[in-house]
Every structure is written in structure tokens, then in C-alpha cells.
């Protein structure tokens, strides 16, 4: 079973400004704030007035960025306590958004995946969404057996948070689920579970 080097692994080319966008809609988490600040620096004088940012300090060590974002003088900055509360607000925003809105997202991989997933649910092609990976390499993992998602996975092997099976984390990635695949590691030899390695820190 191939674990690494799989072509479904997404690429995150980094945030690049779309100067033609009428609205820059940015969802950022944790260290993703740094990508937003860099984008603002590259943007023209009209950038703040054309920009709405949803930001959550999130799981990664994103302390102290809220002040920097506030200083940009954006059209709107919504700071939310958690990723789910951010996604709830973004969902409502997208429901009435119009063409000309460019969606950007920056942060840890599991966060990027959930924003892309939400964008696609509102009819945005994933290729239209500009992404930048910042901060932790932690993964969202779907247990292929019970279908439960385990968040912030930093090790392979990891126990499934739902059914408890020991999962090997593959590079195979589902955009629809915004998750990597986790497969029972001791299916052929029950009980023979290798030691977990921290590889997605």
C-alpha cells in the first residue's frame, strides 16, 4: 500500500493577489495571518477597502496577529474564537456573495481543506481558490472504516477518535472530505501496531 508520493496530495502555491477581484474574501487561521499581512503589503492602496477577513487564532501558535490585522483598516475583520465558528460565518457570507469575489485561505492544512470544501459547496471551483499553507503540518484524517474525522493529527500511526482502530495516515487526499485517508495498520496481523511517529508537526 503506497503511503507517500501520491498525486492526490494538494499543492498550496501561496497567496497571490487577484488585482481584478472586486472583493478579496480571506479566511485565515493561526500563522495564516502572516500571509494576509504579506498580501496586504503587495496590494494597492484600494486593498483595505476591498477586503474582508475572517480570522481565528486557531490551533497553531498564532498569538498576537489580531492587532496587526486590525491595523490594516480593512472593510471588515471578523475574529472568531474557533475554526467551526469561522466556517459558520463564512458559510453565510458566501450564500449571498456575487461573482467577482475572490476567495483566499491561509493557515494549517486541515483549515485550508475545510475552507476549500465550503467554497465548493457554494459553487466555487477549487482551482479558483488561492491557498497558502502556514504553521503546523497537522492533518485531518478520515478513518476509511468508520468514516470519522480525526482532527489535528501529528502522528502516523494514530488512533481513530471515533472507532479506536490504529490508523496509518496515507498521502491520499480527498478534497470533498477535506481529509487524508487513514487505514487500519494491523488489519493483516491484528495487534502488530508499529510505534507512532510524529511526522506532521
Amino acid at each position, binding site marked *: *500500500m503506497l503511503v507517500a508520493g501520491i*498525486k492526490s496530495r494538494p499543492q498550496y502555491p501561496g497567496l497571490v493577489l487577484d488585482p481584478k477581484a472586486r472583493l478579496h474574501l480571506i479566511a485565515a487561521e493561526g500563522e495564516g495571518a502572516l500571509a494576509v499581512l504579506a498580501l496586504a503589503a503587495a496590494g494597492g492602496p484600494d486593498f483595505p477597502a476591498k477586503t474582508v477577513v475572517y480570522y481565528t487564532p486557531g490551533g497553531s501558535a498564532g498569538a498576537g496577529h489580531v492587532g496587526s490585522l486590525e491595523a490594516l483598516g480593512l472593510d471588515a475583520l471578523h475574529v472568531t474564537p474557533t475554526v467551526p465558528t469561522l466556517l459558520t460565518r463564512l458559510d453565510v457570507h458566501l450564500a449571498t456573495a456575487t461573482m467577482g469575489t475572490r476567495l483566499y485561505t491561509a493557515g494549517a492544512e486541515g483549515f485550508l481543506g475545510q475552507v476549500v470544501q465550503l467554497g465548493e459547496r457554494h459553487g466555487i471551483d477549487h482551482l479558483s481558490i488561492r491557498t497558502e499553507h502556514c504553521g503546523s503540518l497537522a492533518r485531518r484524517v478520515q478513518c476509511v472504516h468508520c468514516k470519522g474525522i480525526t482532527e489535528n493529527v501529528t502522528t502516523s500511526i494514530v488512533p481513530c477518535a471515533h472507532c479506536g482502530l490504529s490508523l496509518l495516515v496515507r*498521502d491520499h487526499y480527498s478534497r*470533498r472530505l477535506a481529509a487524508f*485517508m487513514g487505514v*487500519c495498520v494491523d488489519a*493483516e496481523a491484528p495487534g502488530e501496531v508499529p510505534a507512532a511517529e510524529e511526522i506532521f508537526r
Partner: protein
Amino acid sequence: MGLVFKTETFRDDFTFSNSPASIRRFPFPFDRDAYAYSVNIEPHTKGAPGSVFEFPIDVDEHYVAEMHDRALVLKADPLRCQSLPHMITAEWDLVELLMTSMAEAYPEHFTLTRDGDAWHWINRPLGIDDRFTFGDTATLPLPPMEYITRQCQGDFSLLDQRDNNLWMDAGIVTTQADWSLDFDIGMNFMEWHGPVPLAHEAGVFDRALKFLLNLQLGRPVRRLNWTMTINPRLDTSPENYHKWGTDRTTVTTENVGDKVHLRVELQALWRLPRSNAIVFSIRCYLIKLSELVTSPKWARRLHRVLKSLPPELIDYKGLTRYHPQTVEWLSKFDDGAPTSPGIGPD
């Protein structure tokens, strides 16, 4: 010609077997004594009478038992059949393709009567007699793709074509070689083939995709793919890997002939008219090695293919734990004589 449908199982007591006629028509996939990836696509045209290529959709003696097994899989895990909302037109295209093919090829078993949108479908082996309005989902007891594919052997996926790529946006997958529809749905051609080793580097998928993007109406194509399975288990899904994985540790040099099965997929692709989507059918044929070696040519060739298989493929196809025993068992049937060209038995 009157097919006689067998009563048999693909789980628990594993009573599945092939009749002698079924062994002779088995789609042996190797046309030479070694295996290498290739874009082995050919037109899906009418083959020899009695062969699996005789009709566009092959129905065989395992039909009723396979459909029963599919129902059991779906009962336990409905996520094996999913369709994204924009695929509904392609679902109806599939209904038309399968019903017309089956009724034309096997009139004694299936009958389709069409009067405009008023369709009447009779499936005698499964005891189904339904009238419905083509295009109106509310007139069928199940969504169109699920309705018809519960009545047709093989897995099916529906591929949407856009942005010069194919997207697996619907499917029913219960007889798979260890891949998950629930995980792969929504992926493009390169992404769902992501886990396949070696072939990306060889450019196989680039060439195949380019070919398929221009697939034409009325000109279906096919290829054969293969792997191996312990016990005649149709549902070797990743979902249930923790339940069937230990099968792979049960092979000994004594039981290879009964336990180890060659698993061949007849993959066929059709352009669909109304949706411009492509249907990708993956029909699984199983044969235990004790049945396969009744053809001396197949026995010799399979021995040579397995013996020379690259380690990446042994791993990818999940053969690692029983590859040595299988090669050793097959070696008894390889006297070193040359094998004749083509895939047919001697």
C-alpha cells in the same frame, strides 16, 4: 442460449466456483510472459460468441449471486453508492445504456419496452417488473443509477468531463480491488489514480486521459486490469480491510489452488449522450488457481508473470504475504515450454 444462474456465496462459506464453460471464457489478462503497464485500450467491439466480449454488458452464471452480494454490501454500508447532484442526467444515460444493452443481448432474461418516456422494464432472473417515466426520478423506487446497477454485474462510476479532465462524481462500488468510492468521489483522473505506483512516471495516465477526453459516442473502449484476492471475495474494500485483511495470512503452499484467486477487471468506457459524461464500468471476474491451471498455457504464463513482478507492484497489489507460496505452487505447472500468443487458453 439460456443462462443457468448459480446459487453461491462470495463471503462466509465462499461457495463460489466457475463451471468448466465459465473457466474457458475467463478473460485471462496476460498476452505475454511478463507484465508491464501500458495504455492497453482497445475498441469495445463485439467479440467471439460465448466470450466475455460477445456483448457490451456481459451477464454470466454468477449474475443472481453477485446481485445478492451487492445488496448485502449496500445494506451494511449505503455509502458505497453515491452521486453528486449534477450527475443526475448521467444517471439516466446509464439507465438507458444498461437496459438497452441487457435487453438486446439477453432477451430471454430482460425486456425493455419504450413508448416515448413511458418505459417498462422486466428483469426475470431477479423478479423485477417496473413501469416508470424516463427522466422522472420519482417514478422509480431508487435513484436511477442505484436502481439499474443493483441489476447489473460490475462496479460503475460516472465521470463528468470539464476543464480537460474527468471527474469521478458518481458511482456504485461493491466489488472493488481495495479502493473507496466514498473517499475518491469528486477526484479527477490523476487524483484517483494517485496511489498507483510507477505508471505516472511512465506517462501512462497522461496518454490515457487525453485519449478518453475524445472518447466518442457509439465507440466504447475497454481494457483489462488485474490483481489477486484471497478467497472469492467480491467486496475487498478498504472500508472492510480490517475484516478481510487476515485472509492474506491464511495461504499455505497446500491451499494455494483453492485460496488464491486471480481477479480480473474488464474495464469499459462509454461516452453518454445527454450528459456528455463517461461511464467507467469495472466488471470483476474471479478464478481460483486450481481452476486456472486447467489451462496449461495460463498456468505457465501466470507463473512467469508473478515471478518477474516488480516489488512495487507486489506491494501495491497487496500480494506481499502470499506471493512466495503462490509462485512456488505455480512452478509445478511450468515445464519451461513456450506459450502461444494471445490471451486465450490452449
